[in-house]
């Protein structure tokens, strides 16, 4: 357990990035990576709640087999816009653009990202893309599925496809610029002594993610541009009536959109790799292997895309090769999970909220990852492909994995971002509610998928109802689990207990500066003399190190712990 502060009451630093300048212009024209991160935080939260609203409509509608709430067309719009809002405007930017932006310069001891103005530009691009997509949602909605499969999207859909395609196309450039910024920053701006193998694994994970962003996103941009031209100008790229090939669209789309899954999960893995060592007070087991696993996932992740297409009629032997590669990409994820587990052994484990999220992540990612084997295996995929089994599987990865990582990270770094602590017990309760609500929502979907219920159905045979009722009940619990942190984190930003420089304490460089940090991050550029997660050679943390070496000579500046 974290010790309660016993010393004199802590005070926020007099000058920090939040009060350095005031006024709306100081935010909209800022080049401070921390303020841009907060702009992203506000915008991705906005899209999260839009996507969440659509999710609630879906679950309410599916309460009964015939669904009285929505017409078929409305239902199709709900699940499509849920997917588009959540994937392109929440999950993909969430951890990289919010936490990556805020933390990468702090973690490597830099003053900012390499290209601060491009960083701001990428936020504006995101907003313009988001505005186009909102336009689509308001002016008739979108009913193609988030996958935009042709020729449904380019010829047959009566919904506002063009603005949505333009929106997703534009927002991709935001992703590319962010990735580019991260890569250059990590290469060129590390503080003295911050060697590659002293980098926190959060940075390694973002390095791998950035590679995927830069190499993958242009492909989806081209794909959507082609689809947009087919829809608007009748050019026949994918429409078989004009000599196009609808399967070509799927190849191009998944060439990005499968790696995009790793854009969502790798940063979350990076967060978990920070949380577990901090709250187990122990080095991450097998640091080099975890770092290499991130890169392996990024590279092999580009070679598995047609596992979304095993039943499209693609060449049998191509399917066999891609299934094999799919099994290979599972291995680095397994390696990471084993290393996280091994880290716990011999640790000194506390159960602060971020660690509860890390445990939640481990359990849910385990289920999500292992159920991927059923889908990667050709013999079982021909049965459960496009059923609710798939829906459950990717929600375990993207919500159970990515969102748990996101929320765990938000709690962990909230004292650094705002200078104030969240209410610990309320946060623990919220984490439990989320975990229970999540499983209640999505576990029944595995079962109904095995029974053969296809996805994207607005009405279903009555024998599937019980599972859908459970799922809807769970979703209402889950909604509470999301609203609680939204409310108390906002409250804590203004009224929470002052946190001090390093409340946990944690070993990263971001904890070696005041909370909230200065606009320039550090008073003087720090010099790094320790390895990541090394609690034993850090007398400044004020911990009891066995053997007398490095015993606490000085209490941490704020007197906590």
């Amino acid at each position, binding site marked *: 357990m974290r010790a309660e502060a016993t010393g004199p009451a802590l005070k926020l630093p007099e000058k920090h990035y939040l009060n350095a300048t005031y006024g709306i212009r100081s935010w909209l024209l800022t080049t401070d990576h921390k303020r841009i991160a907060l702009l992203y935080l506000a915008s991705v939260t906005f899209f999260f709640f839009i996507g969440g609203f659509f999710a609630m409509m879906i679950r309410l509608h599916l309460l009964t087999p015939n669904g009285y709430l929505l017409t078929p067309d409305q239902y199709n719009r709900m699940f499509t816009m849920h997917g588009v809002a959540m994937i392109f405007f929440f999950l993909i930017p969430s951890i990289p653009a919010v936490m990556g932006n805020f933390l990468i310069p702090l973690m490597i001891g830099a003053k900012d990202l390499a290209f601060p103005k491009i960083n701001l530009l990428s936020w504006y691009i995101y907003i313009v893309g988001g505005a186009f997509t909102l336009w689509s949602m308001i002016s008739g909605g979108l009913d193609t599925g988030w996958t935009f499969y042709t020729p449904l999207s380019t010829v047959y859909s009566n919904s506002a496809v063009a603005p949505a395609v333009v929106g997703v196309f534009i927002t991709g450039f935001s992703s590319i610029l962010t990735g580019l910024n991260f890569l250059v920053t990590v290469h060129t701006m590390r503080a003295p002594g911050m060697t590659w193998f002293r980098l926190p694994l959060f940075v390694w994970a973002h390095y791998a993610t950035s590679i995927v962003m830069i190499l993958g996103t242009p492909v989806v941009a081209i794909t959507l541009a082609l689809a947009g031209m087919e829809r608007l100008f009748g050019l026949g790229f994918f429409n*078989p009536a004009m000599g196009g090939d609808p399967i070509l669209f799927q190849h191009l789309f998944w060439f990005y959109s499968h790696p995009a899954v790793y854009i969502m999960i790798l940063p979350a893995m990076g967060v978990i790799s920070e949380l577990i060592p901090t709250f187990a007070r122990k080095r991450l087991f097998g640091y080099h292997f975890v770092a290499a696993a991130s890169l392996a996932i990024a590279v092999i992740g580009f070679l598995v895309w047609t596992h979304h297409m095993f039943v499209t009629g693609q060449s049998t032997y191509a399917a*066999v090769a891609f299934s094999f590669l799919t099994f290979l990409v599972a291995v680095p994820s397994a390696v990471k999970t084993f290393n996280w587990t091994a880290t716990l052994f011999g640790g000194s484990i506390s159960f602060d909220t971020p660690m509860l999220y890390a445990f939640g992540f481990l359990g849910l990612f385990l289920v999500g990852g292992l159920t991927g084997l059923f889908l990667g295996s050709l013999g079982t995929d021909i049965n459960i492909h496009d059923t609710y089994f798939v829906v459950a599987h990717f929600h375990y990865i993207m919500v159970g994995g990515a969102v748990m990582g996101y929320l765990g990270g938000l709690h962990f770094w909230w004292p650094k971002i705002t200078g104030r602590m969240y209410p610990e017990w309320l946060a623990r309760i919220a984490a439990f509610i989320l975990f229970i609500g999540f499983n209640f929502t999505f576990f029944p979907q595995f079962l109904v998928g095995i029974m053969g219920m296809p996805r994207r159905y607005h009405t279903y045979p009555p024998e599937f109802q019980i599972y859908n009722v459970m799922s809807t009940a769970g979703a209402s619990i889950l909604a509470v689990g999301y609203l609680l942190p939204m409310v108390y984190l906002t409250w804590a930003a203004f009224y929470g207990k002052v946190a001090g420089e390093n409340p946990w304490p944690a070993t990263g460089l971001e904890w070696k500066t005041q909370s909230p940090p200065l606009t320039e991050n550090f008073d003087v550029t720090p010099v790094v003399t320790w390895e990541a997660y090394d609690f034993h050679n850090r007398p400044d943390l004020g911990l009891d190190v066995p053997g007398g070496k490095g015993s606490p000579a000085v209490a941490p500046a704020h007197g906590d712990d």
Partner: protein
Amino acid sequence: MQASNFAGNVDALFSFILMTTLFFAVLVTVLIIFAAFKFRRQSANEVGDDVHGNNLLEVGWTLIPTIIAIGIFAWGAAIYVNYRIAPKDTLDIYLVGKQWMWKLQQPNGRKEINELHIPVNRNVKLIMGSEDVIHNFYVPAFRVKMDVVPGRYNTMWFRPTKTGKYHFFCSQYCGTNHAVMGGWVTVMEPAEYASWLSGESGDVNPVSAGERLFTQFACNTCHIPNGTGRAPSLNGVFGGNVLLADGSTVVADETYIRESILQPKAKIVGGYQPVMPTFQGLITEEQILNLTAYIKSLQSQPVPAKGAGVVQAPAGKK
């Protein structure tokens, strides 16, 4: 319900993966819970052991999952290759998907909509095309599915091993009525199949038979009772006056209904597009009679304010 040659093997592989993954899931979960209790923090300033890692362990937990993964891959690939390469002696059935119905044709030319009749223990191959978007033909009891793609023919095969009626679904999202684009596979004894193929229907009550046909031929996806469909509601139509697109009216009697089913473009109801396909050759005379009986039975149903097929209720309606 396992009802095809693939079902047993697919389920066996499924169970094998389930056991393997369950083993690892339980193992990791138990280790995590054990560690969380055993190594919980005892005093506020305590730190953990100073351990970097263990290369032998790393090699072990890289290799073991790789080997298991390759095993699962190989089993799955074997099933798939067998599924993708159809045997030579198959009963070939042609299938066309369109928004939002399935049209199937037996080798002797007999056509069906949203129904597939096949004999048990015979290799069946579906040769599949689409008129518009991508669909997917999925029979959960057979454990197999395949996309139906416009501009090309895909094939799938299976050998039904149990007689009975099994749901089939469209499992590739295809627009508005994707969820109702399903039907039934009826697996019959070979003799029964032969007599079915020659076209006898055993229904007794024409109204309920007609109601079933109304769904089976997917009439209900457009002729929605509350008038919100692509085609007029049929409530109260029989015996009433129907306003046509050319401004004339016609009395909806048996002849009109028969003509509308077989030559839907002959008389278009005002305010609607000529989108209905012809059912000429798809439907037997007996089935037309059953459908007419069903439409007659809708005479007493409430007529919607908008989307009604009828301008004036029948004069003698009680």
